[in-house]
C-alpha cells in the first residue's frame, strides 16, 4: 500500500509548496516580505536558510517519490493529499509563529497593524494542518492500519 511513502511524498511537496508560495507571492509579487530586514537574529537567519534549502530538497524529492510510486502503481491520491495538507499547514504555522514572531526574521507586511495579518496567516495554517491530520487518520483507517 506504501502508506508511509505516499504520506511522506505529500508532506514534502506541501512544505515545498508553502515555501514557494511564500517566496513567489509574498516576496516577488506583493513585495510585502523583505529579502532581509537586517533586524533578524542570527538564529533566525540560519533557520530561514535551512528552510529555504530544505524546501527545495523537499520539492524535488517529492516529485521523484511520486514518479516512483506511479511507476510501481502504488500512488494513492488521498493519502498524498493528507500529507500535502499537513506539510503545507505545518510549515506555514512554523513560519508564522516561530520565524515571524519568535525569531523576528521578517514580518508579513511592513507599515501596517500586524495583528489581522498574523491572525489570518496562522488560522489558514492551522486549518490546513487540522485538515491534513484528519485526512491522515481517515486514510490510515481506510488502509486498516492500527491508529
Amino acid at each position, binding site marked *: 500500500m506504501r502508506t508511509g511513502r505516499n504520506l511522506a511524498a505529500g508532506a514534502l511537496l506541501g512544505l515545498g509548496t508553502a515555501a514557494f508560495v511564500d517566496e513567489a507571492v509574498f516576496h516577488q509579487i506583493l513585495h510585502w516580505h523583505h529579502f*532581509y530586514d537586517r533586524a533578524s537574529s542570527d538564529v533566525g537567519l540560519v533557520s530561514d536558510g535551512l528552510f529555504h534549502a530544505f524546501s527545495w530538497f523537499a520539492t524535488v*524529492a517529492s516529485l521523484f517519490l511520486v514518479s516512483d510510486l506511479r511507476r510501481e502503481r502504488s500512488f494513492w491520491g488521498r493519502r498524498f493529499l493528507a500529507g500535502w495538507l499537513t506539510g503545507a499547514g505545518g510549515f506555514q504555522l512554523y513560519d508564522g509563529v516561530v520565524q515571524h514572531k519568535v525569531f523576528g526574521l521578517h514580518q508579513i507586511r511592513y507599515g501596517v497593524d500586524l495583528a489581522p495579518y498574523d491572525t489570518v496567516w496562522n488560522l489558514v495554517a492551522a486549518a490546513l494542518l487540522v485538515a491534513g491530520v484528519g485526512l491522515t487518520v481517515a486514510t490510515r483507517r481506510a488502509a486498516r492500519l492500527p491508529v
Partner: protein
Amino acid sequence: MTHHGSAPLLVTGLVLTAAVAYLVVASGVPRWPVGRTVRWLLGVAAVGAALLGPLGSVGGAAHDLRAHVAGHLLLGMLAPLLLVSAAPVTLALRALPHRRARVLARLLRSRPVAVVTHPAVAALTDVGGLWLLYRTDLYALAAARPPLLAVVHLHMLLAGYLFAFSLIGPDPAPHRPGLAVRAGVLVLAVAAHDVLAKLLYAAPPPGVAPMPEAGMLMHYGALPVHVALFVLLGREWAAGQERARRRAAPVGTAIIPRTSEP
C-alpha cells in the same frame, strides 16, 4: 583577471587547451557520448566567461561586487557542475594506456582522495572559502593583488569541482557515501550559501562599497544550480529503485511498464 601583464592571455590559453585536449582525447574513444563533450565545452566556456571579458577585468570583478558574485556563480557553481557531468576521469581511464590507467584508478581509491572528496570536507572547502572571501579582509586584499585574486579564482573552481564530484556525476567515486549523507550535506551547504547571500545583502565585505544587489544575485542566481544538484541526486535514487525492482523480479517475467527510460 587583470589588464596588467599577460593574465588574460594565460587564461585564454588554458581554457582553449582544456577544450581542445578533451576534444582530441574524446575523438579517439569509440562511442564517447556527445552530451558529455557538449557539457565539457559549456563548462570550459563558463570558466572563460567568468575570468575574461567584463566580469573578469579589474574595475569589474575587483571593484564591482555584483560582477564578482556573477563570477562566483559561473566559476564556482555552473562550470564545476558541467565539468563533473562531462566525466573527464572516465575519459582519461578509457584513453590512457593500461598501466597508467591502473595507476590513476589506484590513486582514486587512495586514502587522501577519500578524505578530500568526502561531501562534508568538500562542502567546507567550497562554501567555507566563500565565507572567508566575503566576510574577512581577503576580498579587499585579493582585489588589490592580481596574483592573490588568481589563487582565489583557482580555489573557487577546484573547490566547486570537488564539491560537485563529491555529490554527483558519472566518474568513478569509490568512496562516495550514500544518498542520505549527500543530500544532507547539500541541504546544509545550500543553507550556508543562502545565509551568506543575506549577509552580503546586508553588508559588503570589509573595505568594499555596499551593494545589496550582489546579495540578491548570489541568492537567486545560485538557485538553478542548487536545484539541478537535487535533481541529479533524485535521478540516482530513482535509478536505484528501478534496479532493485528488476533484481526482485524473476528472470523472464514482464515487469510493470515503465513510463520513461533514461
